[in-house]
């Protein structure tokens, strides 16, 4: 039963990542949404598959190897894209000014 929880949690998280990629105003906020949501959702789904599968131990271990590689690779590529976007002249549009929200 725990694999159902992991699978549904991962599916919802990946859907919210795609929604954030479509709706956020800026490259950096989109990177923020997809880097977190995609990594977490993919690791959760792969854990569910590794728990539920009938494969031998090497097959189950391969799911965990893919999850580990996603956890290493996805933030690395996101960091490289953010650095390259800032160096190629894309300025951030979203400004967080919480003091102005509270004191109009």
């Amino acid at each position: 039963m725990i694999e159902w929880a992991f699978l549904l949690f991962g599916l919802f998280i990946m859907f919210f990542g795609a929604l954030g990629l479509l709706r956020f105003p800026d490259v950096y906020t989109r990177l923020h949404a997809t880097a977190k949501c995609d990594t977490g959702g993919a690791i959760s789904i792969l854990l569910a598959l590794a728990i539920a599968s009938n494969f031998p131990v090497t097959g189950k271990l391969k799911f965990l190897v893919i999850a580990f590689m996603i956890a290493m690779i996805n933030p690395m590529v996101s960091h490289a894209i953010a650095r390259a976007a800032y160096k190629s002249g894309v300025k951030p549009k979203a400004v967080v000014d919480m003091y102005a929200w509270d004191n109009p």
Partner: protein
Amino acid sequence: MAQENLLVILPYAVAFLVFTATLVSYRVIFGPTLADRAVALNTATTKAVVIIAMLSLLYDAPYLLDVSLVLLMVNAVGGLIIAKYMEVRA
């Protein structure tokens, strides 16, 4: 035992992930800048990795996991090369 329990929902999960990948491909096609396209392509490739891992469980074929792992590594190299291209072109 547990695998047959999960096989009920797995085709719908694959269809749902294909739907979200279709949503993401809007940003690949109409993205305003090159960085948007790179981010969306990275996201779509991660979704494809998860879809192939699900299909390996659905078809009971463990060799598809190797395909998934190779696609993940190609995604890493391709993303870094696109980032380097954006940095050099600026």
